[in-house]
C-alpha cells in the first residue's frame, strides 16, 4: 500500500485567495447598484468592458510568461482590478478609456512588475491616474445624478454614447452635463473647489441643486452603499479595520478641525466622508493587500497617510478628488512603513531588528 506524503499542516482553513476576491466583488454590489441608479446603466457597460479587457490581457500575459492561464485567471484578482477601475471612471467615458486603463493596469502595473502579488502599486489606481493625466476631459465628465438631470438616457443611448462619444441624437457628454440654464453640472467636490476659488462661502455653495442634506445628491448614497459593502468585508474578515479606519481618521479628523476653525471655507467631515471616492477608496481600494502595508500598525499608518493626503489634495491641490494619487503615494511608502512597524517578536526586547 502506498501512502500519500504531505507537509504539515494537513488541514487548511477553507478560504482561498479566489474566495476572498469573490467576496470583494460581492461587497461591491450595493455600491454599484446605487451608482447605476444615480448615474445610469453605463457603469455596468464599463464593468463588462473592463472585465473582458482584463481577462484577455491577463491570459495573454500569463501565456507570454509561460504560466498556466486558466489557473491564473481563477484567482479572480484581475476581476477585482477591472471592476474597481470601471466604477471609478465616469459612467459615460468612451470605451477606449476603460480598455486602455485596464490593459495598462494588468500588463504594465501588474505583470511587468512580476505578476500577482508582486506589484508595487495598486493596479486599478495606477490605471486611473494614467487615464486622468492623459485624458483629463473624458475622465472628469461625470454626469449629474439622474434625479436632477434633465436627460434620462435609455440603455441604447448609454451604449451609443460609450461607443461613439455621442448620443444617437448627437449630444456630446459635455452637452448632457449642461442644465437648462446653460450651467455645466460638476461633481460636488469639483463644484466646491471651483466655487471656493470664486470666493463663495460653503453655505452659499450648498444651496445649489446638486447638494443635499449630507453631501452631494447621489454621491452621498453611493458612498453610504460602499460603506455598507465595507462592513460586509469587515464582517467576513476579508479586510481588517486598520486601513479603512486609518484612512477615515486621516481624512475626517483634519477635516473636522479645519471646519471648526474656518466653517465657511473648509468643508466638514460629513461632506468629505460622503463625497467622491472616499468610501470606495477606504474599504475597497486602499485595502488591496498586495500594495498595502502588512502589519496592523503599518496598515493603520498606511491608511492614515492616504486619508491625510486626500484631505490635503482636496483642500489645496489641483484636483477635486485625490484617492488615486494618495493611494499611489502611500504605496511608495509601504516598504518603509513595513520596515518600521514590524511587531515585537516573542521574547525580544525591541522590534524585529536582530533583537
Amino acid at each position: 500500500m502506498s501512502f500519500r506524503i504531505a507537509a504539515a499542516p494537513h488541514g487548511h482553513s477553507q478560504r482561498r485567495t479566489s474566495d476572498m476576491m469573490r467576496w470583494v466583488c460581492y461587497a461591491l454590489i450595493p455600491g454599484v447598484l446605487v451608482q447605476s441608479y444615480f448615474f445610469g446603466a453605463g457603469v455596468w457597460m464599463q464593468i463588462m468592458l473592463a472585465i473582458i479587457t482584463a481577462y484577455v490581457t491577463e491570459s495573454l500575459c500569463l501565456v507570454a510568461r509561460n504560466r498556466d492561464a486558466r489557473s491564473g485567471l481563477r484567482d479572480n484578482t484581475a476581476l477585482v482590478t477591472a471592476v474597481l477601475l470601471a466604477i471609478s471612471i465616469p459612467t459615460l467615458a468612451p470605451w477606449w478609456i476603460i480598455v486602455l486603463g485596464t490593459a495598462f493596469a494588468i500588463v504594465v502595473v501588474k505583470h511587468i512588475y512580476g505578476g500577482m502579488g508582486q506589484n508595487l502599486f495598486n493596479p486599478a489606481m495606477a490605471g486611473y491616474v494614467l487615464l486622468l493625466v492623459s485624458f483629463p476631459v473624458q475622465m472628469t465628465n461625470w454626469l449629474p445624478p439622474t434625479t436632477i438631470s434633465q436627460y434620462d438616457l435609455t440603455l441604447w443611448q448609454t451604449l451609443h454614447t460609450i461607443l461613439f462619444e455621442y448620443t444617437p441624437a448627437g449630444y456630446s457628454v459635455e452637452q448632457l452635463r449642461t442644465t437648462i440654464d446653460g450651467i455645466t453640472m460638476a461633481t460636488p467636490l469639483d463644484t466646491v473647489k471651483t466655487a471656493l476659488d470664486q470666493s463663495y462661502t460653503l453655505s452659499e455653495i450648498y444651496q445649489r441643486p446638486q447638494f443635499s442634506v449630507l453631501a452631494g445628491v447621489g454621491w452621498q448614497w453611493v458612498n453610504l452603499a460602499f460603506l455598507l459593502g465595507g462592513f460586509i468585508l469587515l464582517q467576513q474578515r476579508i479586510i481588517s479595520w486598520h486601513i479603512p479606519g486609518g484612512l477615515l481618521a486621516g481624512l475626517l479628523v483634519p477635516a473636522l478641525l479645519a471646519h471648526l476653525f474656518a466653517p465657511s471655507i473648509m468643508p466638514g467631515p460629513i461632506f468629505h466622508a460622503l463625497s467622491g471616492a472616499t468610501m470606495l477608496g477606504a474599504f475597497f481600494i486602499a485595502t488591496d493587500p498586495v500594495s498595502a502595508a502588512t502589519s496592523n500598525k503599518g496598515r493603520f499608518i498606511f491608511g492614515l497617510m492616504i486619508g491625510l493626503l486626500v484631505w490635503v489634495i482636496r483642500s489645496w491641490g489641483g484636483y477635486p478628488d485625490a484617492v488615486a494619487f494618495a493611494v499611489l503615494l502611500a504605496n511608495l511608502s509601504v516598504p518603509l512603513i513595513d520596515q518600521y512597524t514590524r511587531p515585537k517578536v516573542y521574547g525580544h526586547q525591541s522590534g524585529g531588528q536582530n533583537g
Partner: protein
Amino acid sequence: MRDIKSFVDAGVIGQFPGGIHPPERKQPANAIPLRRLPLPAELVLPLRQHIGPSGECLVKVGDQVLKGQQLTEAHLSQGLPLHAPTSGVITAIEERPTAHASGLPEMAVVLTPDGEERWSTSQPLPDYRQQDKASLIERIQSAGIAGLGGAGFPTAQKLAPQKPIQYLIINGVECEPYICADDRLMREKADEIVAGMEILQFISSAEHILLAIEDNKPEAIAAMQEAIDGKQHISLRIIPTKYPSGGEKQLIELLTGQQVPHHQLPLDIGLLMQNTGTAYAVKRAIIDGEPLLERVVTLTGEQMTQPGNVWALLGTPIEHLLEQGGFKATKSPRVIMGGPMMGFTLPITQVPVIKTTNCILTPTSQELPAAGPEMACIRCGACADVCPASLQPQQLQWLAKARDYDALEQQNLFDCIECGACAYVCPSEIPLVHYYRKAKAEIRNIAREKAKAELARQRFEKRQQRLEREKQERLERHRKAAEARKKMQQEKQQATNENESQPAEANKKPAQDKSSAVAAAIARAKAKKAAQQAAEDHDPKDTSS
C-alpha cells in the same frame, strides 16, 4: 519575578498574539476509555528515541530479556537508557525504518515478545520524600523518561540545574486538534498524575504548581479538580481553547503574562514546565519503580473504524496500531504521526512507536483535504495575524525562497515554533512551514560547513607553523653541523701542522684521525637525511596532515 507572582496570584489568564481555531475533532476518540492492545509480533526499539545521542547496547541477539530490563546504557549526559517493554527474546539488532518523515533506517533492537510479561526486579519507592533530590533525578534518568508532550527532552535534564523555581507548570492543554491522549489520561489517572506532579514539585522545590487545561476538556477538568481538591499548593487554570496555547512559550505567556526572553529558558525566569503524561511517567518511575515502557497514543481519523486511545508499548509497529484501530484504507491514504498541525506523514507503517508518538491520525480527504496548488503570496497578512511568535511569515517566505539566509536570521526565523498556524490560514495555500524548515536546515548546514572550514583553516595554519619551525630547527642543526665540521677540519689542519713540527705526538694521530673521519661521516649522513626530509615535506602530494 514580582510581576509573575502578582499576575498568578490575581488568577487571571493572559493572552498570546495570534493563534487559530481549527475544528477540534476530539470526538469520538476522547469519549472511548483507554484500552490495552494484544502484544505485537515484534517490538522495534531504535537506540535513539529522543533528543540526544543514542546509547550503548547492553544486549546481543539471542538474549532473553525481562520486562523493564535495561537494554542500553546512556553514557552521555544527554542520553537516556532504553528498557524492554515486555519480556521476550532479542531477535535482531539491525537498521530499521524510524518514526521520521523520511523513514530512514537507524540502528534498533528488535524484541520478539514471549507473552509472559515477566518483570525484572523493580524497586518501588513510595516514600520518596526521604530521598535526596539528586538520587530521585538519577532514578528518573535511569527510568528513561523523556518529555511525553512534544520534543521528548530528557526529563531528568530539565530537573537537574536546580535553579530556584517559582512555578511548576503542568501542561494538560493538548491544543492540537484530534489528539486526546492527555485528556484520556487525566480522566482516568488523575490521582497518579497529581502524585507525579508532587514528586516533580518536591524535586524542583517549586513554590507552587499551576495545572493548565483547555476549556474543551470538561471531563478532564472535573477529574483533575477532584484529584487536587484540598491541595493548596496546586491551582487549576482553565484556558480558552486556541491553537497553539499548549506551546511552552505560549502557555507561559497565558499563565504568567510574561514572555521567556530570547536566548533564555523558562528556568531563567523561575518556571519549569512538564507535560501531564510526563508527570504520570514520573510517578510510575519513582513510586512504582517502573521505567518508561509504554505511552498513550490516540488512534483517530475517519479511516479508523475503532478510534480511541490505547496504551502502546514503545516499539509497537504503527502497522499493529492501524490494525487495532480498524484502519480501512481508501484511495491514496495518509497516515500522520502526530496531529494535523505539526504531525508528519509516514511513508511506511513498519515504523515503531517512540516516546514522543502521541497520535496516529488517518483522515479521509474529505476530512482534511490535501493542500491545493500553491499560489502567489498576496501579502494579505493573514499569516502575521495568527503567528504566535509575532513573526512576519510572508516576509520570511519571500526571504526563504530567495535563500537570503542572513536576512532570515535577522528576521528571527529561529523563533518560529513551526506550529503551522500561518500555513493553515494562508489563502494562497503556501506551505509556509515547509519553506521555513528547509531554510533552517540549510542555515544549520551552512553554519556546520563554516565551522568545519574554520577548523580546517586553523589546522592548516598550525601545520604551516610547525613546518616552518621544523625548517628553522633543521637549518640551525645544519649550521651547527657545518660549524663543527669546519672546526674539526681546522683542528685537523692544525694537528697536521703540529705533527709536522712535533713528531713526538705522531703516535696519537691515527686515533684522532679515525674519530674525526667518523664524525664527518655522521654529519654527512645527517645532512643527506635532512635534505631528503625537506624534499618530502615540500612534496605537494603529501596531504596526510
